């Protein structure tokens, strides 16, 4: 028996995102099946799995962007509808028309609309915040550009700047590194690390197991069902990878190689 007074139990911080028994299907085909997942606070988390595993669907369903058949999604312990201002969502880059008549700065301004109001003018101090967000992703010199003139990497940076402008403690990103050059990927990964160190929780749908191992703290391995989740080194074992990617495609040697990074 300890003689010290027991510290009063502190409730653990609510998970930035928790889904319980989430089931989504397109037609008769289940895309997500009974998925339970809880992402840790203040961590850089990855959702990985093979093509068609439902990674993007998980984010969209968790945010209520597509209907789910069953299950529950909680952001910081509250239902999504009550917690929209706590999340910044970065959709897949291909989901928008990049020939749309809009400038880089206007896209980032969109991140402020939910807070400044959809109908009022953007106040001057908001301008400074937007400049700062652009600066953080290295796009300060591109504020007046048409988005159509940007490279793939620059477009991704603009989307991230918009998410920063939302000033939300939770960020969810859908395949931010798909089709992005190595330099941009490295620089965005660096930025995500900084944001995590500032205390934000970041959840990224990702496909590159190599960078998951070297950069991320937590991982959810998904293939329609949740295969495993937890710290990266515990989750990405040859055994779980085979279960997620299928024995036919991942031989023991491959899995070993992936596991070794």
């Amino acid at each position, binding site marked *: 028996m300890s003689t010290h007074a027991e510290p009063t139990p502190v409730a653990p911080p609510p998970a930035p995102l928790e889904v319980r028994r989430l089931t989504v299907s397109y037609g008769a085909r289940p895309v997500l099946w009974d998925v339970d997942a809880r992402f840790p606070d203040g961590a850089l988390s990855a959702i990985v799995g093979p093509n068609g595993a439902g990674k993007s669907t998980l984010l*969209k369903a968790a*945010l*209520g*962007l597509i209907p789910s058949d069953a299950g529950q999604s909680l952001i910081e312990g509250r239902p999504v*509808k009550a917690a*929209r201002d706590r*999340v*910044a*969502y970065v*959709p897949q880059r291909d*989901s*928008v*028309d990049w020939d*749309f*008549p*809009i*400038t880089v700065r*206007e*896209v980032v301004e*969109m991140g402020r*609309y*939910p807070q400044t109001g*959809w*109908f009022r003018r953007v106040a001057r101090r908001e301008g400074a915040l937007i400049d700062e967000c652009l600066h953080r*992703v*290295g*796009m*300060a*010199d*591109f504020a007046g550009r*048409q988005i159509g003139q940007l*490279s793939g*990497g*620059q477009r991704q*940076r603009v989307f991230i700047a*918009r998410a920063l402008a*939302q000033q939300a403690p939770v960020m969810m990103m859908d395949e931010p590194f798909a089709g992005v050059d*190595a*330099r*941009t990927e490295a*620089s965005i990964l660096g930025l995500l690390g900084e944001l995590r160190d500032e205390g934000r929780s970041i959840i990224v749908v990702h496909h590159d197991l190599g960078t998951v191992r070297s950069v991320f703290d937590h991982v959810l391995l998904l293939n329609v069902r949740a295969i495993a989740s937890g710290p990266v080194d515990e989750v990405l074992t040859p055994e779980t990878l085979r279960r997620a990617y299928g024995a036919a495609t991942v031989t023991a040697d491959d899995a070993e190689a992936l596991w070794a990074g």
Partner: protein
Amino acid sequence: MGWLIDLLPLDYTDAVVVVGATLLGLTAGALGVFAVLRERSLVGDALAHAALPGVCIAFLATGAKDASTLLVGAAFAGLVGALLMVGIERTSRIRPDAAIGVVLSSFFSLGIVLLTYIASTDNANQAGLEKYLFGQAAGLLERDLVVMAALAVCSLTLVTLAFRPLKTTLFDPSFAGSVGLPVRVLEVLMTMLLVVAVIVGLRTVGAILMVAMLVAPAVAARQLVHRLSLVIPVAALIGAAVGVTGALISSRGELPTGPVIVLVAVGFVVLCVLAAPHRGVLWRARKLRAARRRTLAESVLVDLETAIHAGPPPTAVELAQASGRPARALRAALRDLDRAGMLARDGDRLYLSEPGAAAAHAVLERRELWSAWLEHGWRLELPDAREPDPTDLRASLGDEYADRLSALAAGGR
């Protein structure tokens, strides 16, 4: 509306035509942007065609022939058509374009059948409904104009008020949903706005060609300006200008209004698509040609510099052989270089003038910097999202990083 008609320095009929066509152009131009940017131009077409049976049914039900009553019928039919399109898309495996085609053709056929039936009845009132096919600007009544103006003002005010939600939904529906915007509602609203635009323009342009007034001004405006907050008003202005021009020509020449307005609109769009700065086809072609020509001249300059270093100054023929360039391209490049004062000649033999030698060195330096980037660029750790431009790496990277790159390349050797 009377004061406006009196105010115009035109006789009464022309003044009514001008006001009607202006309202049509403003509304269709501004609201058509929402069809074009969502890649839903054909929805506008289907809504316009769907209006025709609405007009006929309203006439059969009320026996009235004034535009306002008939347009209410058109609006209802448009809404039913819109709901059907969405319904077919959602519940069956029919693709959106096919759903649009089905709704468009079935509603329009129904409209034609009803028109024919009405014409066969002995209703003294029936003459004139066929105007809704191709439109007629002359013969609008003042009180119809009042209704059209009210619709135009309401819809444009709505767009102004809801501009940010509309812009956000239009550009990025997933993001809009994630911040809690009612994306479905806004999308329905955009379709409603198209119905309103169709109603305002139907009498003037007619059901068949209404889609042109939705699409053409938006396409032209998109060529000219590059922000949504400008595209909408510019499209409205283009729509108004095109509408007035076409309606006046048609009422003077006793021509059907719809086709004339559409011809004017298409003429303007073609002009914009060809000649608009930055986006125009001709503008881009000219820029590309200039760039190719410059690249060719620079390459020949370097060839010549290399040849002079290696041996006696070459003739044009020798230069062509050594570089493997077609003789015609080489001649064109030499002409350009001559004009820029970069060449000197001794009989057939070619030399570089002093500015020519300097230019050749500059080109070589740029090429060296570019290959340094390809090899060592990854070590440079650029501080922001700037991207290397192969034609002018120094300008795109900035002097500091260009120098650092040269140093890296020199050190790596």
